[in-house]
């Protein structure tokens, strides 16, 4: 396992297989929180932290508890519980340390539990048979891509608010059209590695 292969995992997680544009995961917070730049940054950081923590814990849980006991099929239930409790912890932490951030993230903080990206990364690390180091790199690269998208998107949407959009396309539909165009742009990263 060389440094370059780790770099490949990072770049492919962040750009080539961008979790939002090519895997279609984590769209709910992507639509909901990306209206303001500040909450997009906050949400992005929270997701990076949660995905990183949850994936590493899940990795240990899988290889040191489920595999020795022969309970691999229980991974879905165990991982989701782990993620739920981890998110609860982060929520309490943010509430204590930064009430203003807590207010602006609102409903989306507990909803990180049902952010498919978190569960997907935890499961994907197992499916790809990543080692611990690879898991760590992947679990930072993927949410970094998520945050990148969230921030780019928030800046675009701030301008969209003042644009003249057909009545029916106002709000989410026009945002999805923007996402479609961005998917073309990110398509150019395919074949980079």
């Amino acid at each position, binding site marked *: 396992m060389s440094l370059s292969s780790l770099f490949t995992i990072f770049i492919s997680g962040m750009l080539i297989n961008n979790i939002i*544009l*090519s*895997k*279609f*995961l*984590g*769209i*709910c917070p992507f*639509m909901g929180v990306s209206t303001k730049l500040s909450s997009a940054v906050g949400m992005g950081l929270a997701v990076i932290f949660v995905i990183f923590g949850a994936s590493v814990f899940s990795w240990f849980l899988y290889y040191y508890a489920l595999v020795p006991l022969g309970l691999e*099929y*229980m991974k*879905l*239930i165990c991982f*989701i*519980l782990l993620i*739920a*409790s981890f998110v609860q912890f982060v929520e309490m932490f943010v509430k204590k340390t930064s009430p203003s951030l807590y207010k602006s993230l609102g409903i989306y903080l*507990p*909803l990180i*539990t*049902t*952010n*498919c990206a*978190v*569960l*997907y990364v935890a*499961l*994907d690390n197992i*499916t790809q048979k990543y080692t611990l180091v690879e898991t760590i790199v992947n679990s930072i690269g993927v949410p970094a891509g998520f945050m990148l998208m969230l921030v780019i998107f928030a800046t675009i949407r701030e301008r969209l608010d003042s644009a003249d959009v*057909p*009545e*029916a*396309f*106002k709000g*989410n*539909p*026009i*945002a*999805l*059209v923007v*996402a*479609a*165009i961005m*998917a*073309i742009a990110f*398509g150019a990263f395919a074949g980079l590695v």
Partner: protein
Amino acid sequence: MSEKKQKRSFVSEMLYNNPVFGLYLGICSSLAITTTLNNAIGMGIAVIVVLVLSNIVVSLLAPITPDEIHIPVYIVIIASLVTIVGMLMQAFTPQLFSALGAFIDLIVVNCIILGRAEAYASKNNVLDSAKDGLMMGLSYTFSLIAMSFIRQLLGTGVLSMSNPMTNAEIFSLRLIPEGYEIGIFTQQTGAFLTFAILAAAVTAYKNANDKKEVAKQKAKEAQA
């Protein structure tokens, strides 16, 4: 209000309370797996099964579930059901299982299911909850079919379906001649674009209907 609701037809009810295009729930899977009709229907049925069963179990357990931990309890119920459905699909419809891939597991985090458990099943009796689950599941499936219909037709020019158990073809129709299909619709861009247009169409329908109802109300008031 409830009378007015009952008057609405099945289809308009589906459009009004559509979880996907109206409330933007469960978008992830509807964007990802709607490349073919087969995938859409398979996913839809899996979600209906999980949704109905989870609504039933949640409404049965609601009276004895402590309030502080109700979310974890619901998640465990849903995750167990998804594990069961996933195992059944792996055994009986292996092709479909591999086509849907990780998205079977990700039914757990489909916001519709937890949303209905929290908003409806925990407060209503078993029969109503099952009915609600079926209704929501059907409108989810309906949305998936609409998406995949457009994407498969424009992207490949062929509409086809096959039996997921045996993989035998049920029907296959080439509606757009070869060389004229728009390949981008099978890709990510097409998914976002199709979704955006359908969501806008549903919004436009709602707006037009609401205006009509307001006009009716006004006419009634003028008469009185």
